């Protein structure tokens, strides 16, 4: 191959500058072997991301939420503070799991996310109102979001675009659906499905992970908010689309093949 494999991997990871990217894309057109290699790497990346997406939907144990707020658990004398925890691990070398964890899972993420169409929409109106529009009671994607949903492939994001696509899949409803993230001050993620020639927004979560000084705090494509991951789990029929499947669906205008 005329291009080193690590460079092709960097291409798939979005790590190349525009010139190098153009070089890879030209090589892909010329050399089917390179194209095939890139497709394999994309498929592998998507497979790994998908396999770990569900982890984010799990409830976080309360003791960790308490620890994040600097509150030690009341009922667990083994892990009251750092000093004791370190002392325990250094002096007695206790395997960690022998300390008594406090298993009281709660859906803690719910507290930091505005979940659901209604609440999410209110927050949206103030920031990127052209991205999500109210079409006679239904929320549909508009502007750059609609464009991204229709044309962008998963994992591809040009620096100029604020929209990033995560997973694409065929839903139980028979529609094609895609998860998206909007990067910027109001970092948000959602699930949109192609129905009646528009992208209906079926779930939306606004992440609190935006720094107040306005600097960009990127929501990585792999970190689907739990609310969205749950919506995907509920609606997905079979496997998410791979790169080839996405390209085929895009060519069909996201109309499912009649079965």
């Amino acid at each position: 191959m005329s291009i080193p494999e690590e460079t092709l991997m960097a291409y798939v990871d979005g790590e190349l500058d525009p010139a190098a990217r153009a070089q890879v894309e030209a090589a892909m057109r010329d050399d089917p072997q390179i194209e095939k290699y890139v497709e394999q790497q994309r498929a592998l990346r998507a497979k790994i991301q998908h396999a770990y997406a569900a982890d984010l939907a799990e409830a976080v144990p309360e003791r960790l939420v308490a620890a994040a707020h600097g509150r030690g658990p009341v009922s667990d004398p083994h892990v009251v503070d750092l000093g004791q925890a370190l002392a325990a691990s250094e002096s007695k070398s206790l395997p960690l799991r022998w300390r008594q964890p406090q298993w009281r899972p709660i859906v803690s993420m719910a507290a930091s996310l505005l979940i659901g169409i209604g609440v999410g929409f209110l927050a949206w109106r103030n920031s990127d109102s052209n991205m999500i529009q109210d079409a006679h009671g239904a929320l549909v994607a508009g502007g750059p979001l609609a464009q991204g949903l229709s044309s962008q492939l998963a994992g591809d994001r040009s620096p100029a675009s604020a929209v990033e696509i995560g997973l694409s899949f065929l839903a139980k409803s028979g529609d094609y659906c895609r998860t998206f993230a909007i990067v910027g001050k109001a970092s948000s993620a959602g699930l949109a499905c192609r129905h009646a020639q528009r992208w209906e927004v079926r779930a939306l979560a606004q992440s609190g992970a935006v720094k107040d000084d306005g600097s960009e705090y990127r929501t990585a494509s792999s970190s689907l908010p739990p609310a969205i991951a749950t919506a995907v789990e509920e609606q997905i029929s079979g496997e998410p689309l791979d790169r080839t499947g996405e390209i085929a669906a895009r060519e069909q205008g996201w109309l499912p093949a009649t079965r």
Partner: protein
Amino acid sequence: MNTPGAPENVHEQIVALLPRLRRFARNLARNPHDADDVVQIALERALLKLDQWRRDARLDSWLFKIVRNAWIDELRSRGRRDKMFLAAEAGDNVGDATLDREADLMSVQSAMANLPEDQRTAVSLVLVEGLSYKEAADVLDIPIGTLTSRLARGREALQAMLVPAQGTAI
């Protein structure tokens, strides 16, 4: 609206990152119980040195680094005998999390668990957590070239484990 950098705001940001910190720790520890304990220790350490977090740096990268250091410390404190115990235990725990999911999803976690630690960490930070090469290299305190070669070897190993041998249908 919180004022910029107000402590409660940082705490909320950390809470929002907990699912990713747990996921990263699981990839390190290969055992969900140890992973949560490591995250807890890391959170306690992070809060003690919150003033060392540069506000222009990504909070997730900074926390990933603390989680990893906490895990390394834990391994050291266990000593060699316990490491053997850990290895045996990790084998038991591979794949107990998501039994009701498709079979091939399971094999991704198993394949990851079979990677050498340095490759597993690189793959975890870049491909699972979505960090850039530079951010991942910073978390691991290694040059970018080292990171990309670990990543490449990890990918090749995963590809070999996850994709059927050439010639059979995918």
